[in-house]
């Protein structure tokens, strides 16, 4: 009976996720060693001839990753974009989370809701908003070019640039940083700051010696939540980046949809998976550091 209940609870979700999460992962691993098909897709990975099986697998797709520095550069650039996005998110989220945590209790829920609200509008709507703001006819670009004109500089175009991509990446992921940071800051004991003040600590000292170290676990949690989705994104560079702003996600999409080279697309996807897994494990370690407040 006990075992029956266990199977009844565990099996349906386990079988479903085995079929649609574990198997796809394994198929992708296999695909990364297969030859591309003649018309896109995949070539058969084994042949049966006279009852003998011949496997038709290759390491070429993985070797292609290192043939030129193109893909490594792209990967580095994506990592750089993700690092910058995470850092700017932290920079913007910190004063916001601090202000909300210092507000009267009855206002805090509303202030947090106001952070999440834009996040609930459709993802593409939020990207589209920046396409309008950065458009060459937009007020922002015209205003900027008015200033550059006065200074005798070349006019700038914000659309299809790294600046546009990173601004939108920050915009889309900001709540992921604010929420864990606020959850952490809200729990700090005000008595700690009082004690520090009584002992003669200045405002800056109170922040850097008390609030900042205590807030690190919240900051780490937020960093992981921003960094991982940022690294794999393709819609934002696709719509705002032009040719300069592309990231690894764009090349993965290109391999699967446009050039239909699935084996190489799988290789790139597995590299991204590998980086994600390392980050998840690292984050788990950081969360368990002795002395860390969670």
């Amino acid at each position, binding site marked *: 009976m006990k075992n029956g209940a266990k199977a009844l609870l565990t099996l349906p979700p386990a079988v479903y996720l085995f079929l649609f999460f574990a198997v796809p992962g394994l198929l992708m691993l296999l695909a990364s060693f297969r030859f591309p098909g003649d018309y896109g897709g995949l070539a058969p990975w084994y042949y049966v001839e006279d009852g003998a099986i011949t496997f038709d697998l290759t390491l070429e797709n993985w070797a292609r990753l290192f043939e030129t520095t193109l893909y490594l550069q792209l990967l580095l650039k994506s990592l750089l974009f993700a690092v910058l996005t995470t850092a700017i998110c932290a920079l913007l989220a910190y004063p916001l989370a601090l202000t909300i945590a210092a507000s009267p209790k009855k206002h805090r829920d509303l202030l947090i809701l106001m952070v999440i609200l834009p996040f609930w509008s459709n993802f593409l709507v939020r990207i589209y908003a920046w396409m309008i703001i950065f458009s060459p006819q937009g*007020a922002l670009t015209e205003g900027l070019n008015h200033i550059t004109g006065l200074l005798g500089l070349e006019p700038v175009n914000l659309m299809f640039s790294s600046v546009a991509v990173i601004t939108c990446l920050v915009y889309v992921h900001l709540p992921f940083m604010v929420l864990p940071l606020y959850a952490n800051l809200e729990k700090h004991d005000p008595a700690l700051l009082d004690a520090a003040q009584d002992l003669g600590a200045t405002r800056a000292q109170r922040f850097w010696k008390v609030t900042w170290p205590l807030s690190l676990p919240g900051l780490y949690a937020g960093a992981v939540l921003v960094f991982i989705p940022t690294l794999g994104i393709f819609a934002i560079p696709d719509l705002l980046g032009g040719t300069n702003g592309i990231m690894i996600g764009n090349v993965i999409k290109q391999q699967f949809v446009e050039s239909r080279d699935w084996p190489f697309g799988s290789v790139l996807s597995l590299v991204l998976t590998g980086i994600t897994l390392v980050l998840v494990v690292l984050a788990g370690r950081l969360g368990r550091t002795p002395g860390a407040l969670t």
Partner: protein
Amino acid sequence: MRRRNPLVTSAAVGVYAFLYIPLIVVAIFSFNDSRLNAEWVGFTMKWYRQLIENDAMLQAAANSLIIASCAAIAAGVLGTLAGVALHRFRQKWLTALVLGPVAMPDILIGVSLLLTFMLMNISLGMMSIILAHVTFCIGFVAMAVQSRMAGMDDSLLEAARDLGASQWQSFRLITLPLLMPGIVAGMMMAFTLSIDDFVVTFFTAGVGSSTLPLEIYSMVKIAVTPEVNAVSTLLMLLTLILITALSRFSPQSLRS
């Protein structure tokens, strides 16, 4: 944390402005009588009128609703089972299986499922989109249910068993009603994630199964037109109404 620094507070106000100005700009230009989203010309409703006549957009909206409803129901059932199993048996492999799709970037779920559907000869369409959405929604329902389970008093189940309830009866009469707020919250989350999803849908959709985000994407890819502003504004309004309704229907009122 009651001290406030005026510099910090004004930075916070600035960040709120950063969050809202882009969306307000979209909404304002949806009423602008000009094809360019550049300067205010005059008030018009014509972009909304054009939208109502756009059959592809209406079909996409209907598809989105069907997909999100099916995904939320299926993920609700599977996620509830997973949440209870995770709490009771604490198996590491099941945790990895359930939370894996939540942690992975969307694009990886999208391309690996595209690969799988093609190899399994599952044709791309509404069905493949639903199957894909359920995959990443299960984890969110499971997490909501698991946190409800953690807050549950086990003595209630013991009391039920002392009074002669079978395992099924105590599950149906005690566990399930107590889990309900978690299940409902998880399913609403699943519905929202599904209707908002662009990336996974992009890879698993076929001909004739376009959803609202896909439709917006193809419009935006071609040109920035105020019609997109109109859809966006309507979508924002819809979310606002949904959230207001949800806050009335919050877990507190469900607990009774």
